[in-house]
């Protein structure tokens, strides 16, 4: 029974991880470099949502605030720091993104201090479904995350701009020939991807707490989820997030919680060794 409970817990944390993982992988698909500034952007999004929620905005409004602030900040850093370097290759841009992540983290620290903060949401006792314990709040948060994912997938599948994004990710030259302007798609991918990362930061903070290191804590799991599913693949990121979430919770039972970080590293190692394209391949939608 405890294994089942751990799996349920893993699904919950996997769902929350999936939102920023989609953002991360979508940016990789279009911009072709791993943007590690997601750690700082997730933190920024969490704090933007926190301020909006504290100011009286409802959940949807606060999530929108987290999305917009994180999207704008992420886009600005991409334009100013990462994309100018991409001509030199993915590595310089990735390294620059580590630096911008640190900058954002410290900007948040400067503005809010180090103390952890919590969203002013009532903490409710868990409810039992059979013998499985679930938290009403986590169900709500999970529902929000699932709704967001549905919206993203619907946008990618059915809207003109979503199709343009996919086309540009699959073959930028061919897409350009068809009149899709790559820089416009890059701007959109940057904004939406970072927006999702910001929302992810807020969703993760809703049930726990937020501080300047909120994003840094999830960076490894997030990257592992994206690599496991296949960098550049949005459904892959979701699958990867679920698998990483469940593996991390199950690892608590087997080797102890202190080795949780190893789960992410092992996942990256195994995938890069045996199936470098990830479970769902590089560009599957």
């Amino acid at each position, binding site marked *: 029974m*405890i294994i089942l409970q751990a799996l349920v817990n893993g699904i919950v944390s996997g769902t929350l991880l999936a939102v920023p993982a989609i953002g991360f992988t979508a940016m990789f698909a279009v911009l072709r470099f791993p943007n590690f500034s997601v750690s700082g952007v997730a933190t920024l999004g969490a704090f933007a949502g926190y301020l909006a929620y504290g100011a009286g905005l409802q959940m949807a409004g606060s999530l929108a605030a987290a999305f917009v602030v994180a999207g704008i900040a992420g886009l600005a850093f991409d334009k100013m720091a990462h994309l100018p370097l991409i001509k030199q290759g993915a590595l310089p841009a990735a390294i620059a993104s580590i630096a911008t992540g640190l900058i954002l983290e410290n900007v948040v620290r400067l503005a809010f201090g180090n103390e952890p903060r919590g969203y002013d949401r009532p*903490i409710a006792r868990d409810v039992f479904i059979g013998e499985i314990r679930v938290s009403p709040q986590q169900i709500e948060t999970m529902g929000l995350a699932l709704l967001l994912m549905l919206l993203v997938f619907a946008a990618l599948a059915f809207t003109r701009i979503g199709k343009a994004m996919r086309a540009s990710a699959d073959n930028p030259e061919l897409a350009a020939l068809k009149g899709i302007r790559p820089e416009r798609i890059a701007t959109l991918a940057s904004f939406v991807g970072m927006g999702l990362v910001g929302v992810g930061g807020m969703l993760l903070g809703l049930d726990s707490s937020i501080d300047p290191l909120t994003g840094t*804590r999830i960076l490894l799991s997030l990257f592992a989820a994206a690599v496991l599913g296949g960098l550049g693949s949005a459904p892959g990121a979701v699958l990867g997030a679920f698998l990483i979430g469940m593996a991390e919770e199950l690892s608590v039972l087997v080797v102890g919680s202190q080795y949780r970080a190893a789960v992410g590293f092992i996942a990256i190692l195994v995938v890069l060794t045996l199936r470098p394209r990830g479970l769902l391949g590089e560009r599957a939608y």
Partner: protein
Amino acid sequence: MNTIRIGRRTALAGGVAALASPAVVRAQADPIKLATLTPLTGAGGPYGPVMAKAAASVVEEVNKAGGVLGRRIVLVSEDDQTNPEAAVRAARKLIDVDKVSAIMGTWASSVTTAVAPLCWESKTFLCTVSGADSITLLPHQGFLIRTQPNSRLQVTRVGEFILSLGAKKAFTMIPQTPFTQSTFDVLNQVLPKGGCTHQSLIYDDKKTTYRTEVDQALRTSPDVILANGYTPDTVVLLKDLYRAGFKGKILGFAYSINQKLVDQVGQPEVVEGVYTFAPSPAEGSSAFEKAKAASGSANPDPYTCQVYDHINLVLMAIANGKAATGEAIKENIRKATVSGGKQVDNAVDGIKEIMAGGKVDYAGASGPCDFDEKGDILDCKFRYDQIKAGKFTLVKIA
């Protein structure tokens, strides 16, 4: 803008004059350099800035009164980020670039463990507030003191307190820290003597939820849970314990379960009845009052009081040793608390007495500040509080 022109001849003449003057004259112009290395960011972030401020205030007072050995003191403050790697970089800068003779205020045990070898190898004196037993067991050659009671002493008292709560089954939830193993060892010794079983779990302090860990703990039906992490992870842990419907008693260290945690949890019933435990500063002593003023806080935390003591002790050691080297501080740090000496509660009075040829017995803001040969303090009081309706209420100081 006016510019002062110094010709080659003038510069040469000045340089020759400076070199020709007696060494002591030049030395007097050199300030004494000391440093605080506190966690301005990271998990210890709520404490480090106040600690650094208290030390800076003491230095300001002493400088106003003429300094030590006729020299001004310069206090360099660096951030250890509650992170051993960052702390080592900062310590290297303090030792190699600033050339400080003492570093004060390292907070996390992992930080102190990483920084200590740099200090003893460079003969820089290190004063720490970290609790892990292993720290004073390092081959520090006397270049280290700590004002925090070691974790063995602290955890022994925690164990005794758990027994006094009538516990029969205790469970410890703790992240991986240098004091994790000694915590288990001590509790496994102390608790069974009082008829209480003890089980434990190490968790990852970077997780955003501890539901599975809580499930594992609750499977053993504990009546007391020792939540032994830092503030950010303890917030998550306490929420998850509440959600899981845990009805037993919860106990934690006051460095993590503090007013900030209560405010942050935001819902009093989640933390209702939680006990906290801390080495107690010497509340009511005159040094404690001075630490209040130095830190600008009406209720300075134990670490701030300890850093207040560090800087006072180091400055008096320099006065006693008539030299501002790490070696001199090491040889004289215990001479600031000589029984029978003049009772003082600050370095300004202490230095005055020492320079007049007297002996001093410093009674600090954190306690008596007497150290054994390993660098551990010999005596300290402990304070137990319980959270009631979101407020900390004193249970006892013993």
